[in-house]
């Protein structure tokens, strides 16, 4: 049987593509159902084709407000976590000092803990301090859990950097600031960018930690969560689809630029 033999030879490819299909399936469903005109409050069953939601993406009360709040939080959280995380990563890779092991563990632990534990413990801190839950508590929490991921991403990049490049810059009479801006930062940039991107995605999408520490503030994931109980507007699917398309485009464009640069560097 040639078909069977072909299947056996390409077993890994077939299995891998099936997994990929499993991963993409919900995105396709979200996309398709953004063109639905549901009967009633829930958008779980296909009724008929309509462009209504795409024509009026902000037609649902409070949804776009929560979206812009999430974007703001993600922006500031990314900025904070990236700055703090990059500093920590440089210190860990470039310097030998006491308590290095303990600090590495402190960085690792937030990633090795169920989110609900961090969320709940942070809430006990805020309750004990009598802090007002809202924008600031959410921002503090997001910077906290994004920090470790940024450190890991930047560390990986800085570790593979050749320190002799910086020595060479110094030998050519570049000052420390000049060396950092002209040599160190450009080489570390892809790692920092990866860390920042990861932080943005994690913060924008976080539900569990936000749910505990937001009080009555509603971020976009919390809006979606609430809508699962009250009724899901089609506009949620529109936002989901738009996010997917923007993300894929951004990543593809980024890779295109990177591969261009690589081929330019080769010639």
């Amino acid at each position: 049987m040639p078909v069977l033999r072909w299947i056996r030879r390409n077993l890994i490819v077939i299995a891998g593509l099936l997994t990929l299909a499993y991963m993409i399936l919900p995105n396709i469903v979200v996309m398709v159902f953004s063109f639905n005109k549901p009967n009633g409050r829930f958008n779980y069953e296909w009724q008929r084709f309509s462009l209504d939601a795409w024509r009026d993406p902000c037609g649902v009360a409070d949804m776009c407000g929560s979206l812009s709040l999430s974007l703001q939080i993600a922006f500031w959280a990314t900025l904070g976590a990236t700055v703090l995380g990059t500093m920590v990563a440089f210190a860990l890779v470039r310097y030998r000092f006491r308590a290095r092991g303990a600090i590495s563990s402190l960085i690792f632990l937030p990633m090795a803990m169920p989110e609900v534990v961090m969320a709940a413990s942070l809430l006990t801190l805020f309750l004990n301090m009598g802090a007002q839950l809202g924008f600031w508590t959410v921002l503090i929490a997001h910077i906290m859990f994004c920090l470790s991921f940024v450190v890991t991403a930047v560390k990986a990049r800085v570790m593979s950097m050749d320190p002799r490049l910086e020595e060479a810059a110094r030998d050519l009479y570049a000052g420390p600031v000049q060396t950092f801006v002209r040599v160190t930062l450009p080489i570390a940039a892809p790692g920092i960018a990866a860390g920042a991107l990861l932080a943005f995605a994690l913060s924008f999408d976080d539900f569990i930690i936000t749910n505990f520490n937001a009080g009555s503030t509603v971020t976009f994931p919390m809006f979606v969560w609430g809508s699962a109980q009250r009724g899901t507007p089609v506009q949620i699917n529109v936002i989901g689809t738009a996010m997917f398309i923007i993300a894929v485009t951004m990543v593809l464009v980024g890779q295109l630029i990177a591969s261009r640069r690589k081929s330019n560097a080769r010639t």
Partner: protein
Amino acid sequence: MSATKAPPAPSPNPEEPRQPTLRKPSTRKRLVPYWLLLPGILWLLVFFALPLVYQASTSVQTGSLEQGFEVTWHFQTYVDALRDYYPQFIRSLLYAGTATILCLLLGYPLAYLIAFKAGRWRNLVLVLVIAPFFTSFLIRTLAWKTILADGGAVVDVLNTLHVLDVTSWLGWTESNRVLATPMAVVCGLTYNFLPFMILPLYTSLERIDGRLHEAAGDLYATPATTFRKVTFPLSMPGVVSGTLLTFIPASGDYVNAELLGSTDTKMVGSVIQSQFLRVLDYPTAAALSFILMAIVLLMVTFYIRRSGTEDLV
């Protein structure tokens, strides 16, 4: 962020060197790593470590919301919490464990495909693995409600193939239903944490030198033997970190159980959430959260020891 931008150290040395190119490490230079670390580490100490201390103290308090809570070293809360909620604990570990194994089984071929077989499609496939990160995971989880709906295509196919008869007999589904059963929750967990398995697997597979495969082939190893003796052992770091990155968040997750499950599939995360945010029984909630943390940390330590990979991050 540069060393020079750090605020000047309160150096005990009165003769602070002005030339930064000085070879001898000065006090100021020795303090540079500490200034770099200070803000980030302080943040983690205040908003990650200190909260855990507060939570530990909350878990041994008694009282009520009206009269206030007080530390009375009431360890009975732990015993009561375990006695009342052990089914949810067992269920969480069971679901998270199953999802992790499924992620490994599903993720390995895809990671292998990207690392060795994708060729010029590699970047596109990688994008398709990462892109779901950027679409809200709650929206995608809700999409599973549509996919697994009663009378939907998936349920129909499984019914026709008599798969549901078997799974219902095993207690994974209820007759003719997938939604609101353990199978739906595990399906959602597997789906949501799959990228966390694939990416570390891909990273460690990609590092393998392709010539090792050729060498194994030259030594008359069959593809299966090559995989068993060369590829898989070399990908162990990826397997270990992928497993941890899937199991840990899955064990505390309550989104999948709440959106795709029923009251019979509640995981411990749901209990902690409702105790904290709805029942407002803070001591019990803190105790539950501490027990979960202890279980996860113990299992992780044991697992890392057994698998023999100490350097994960």
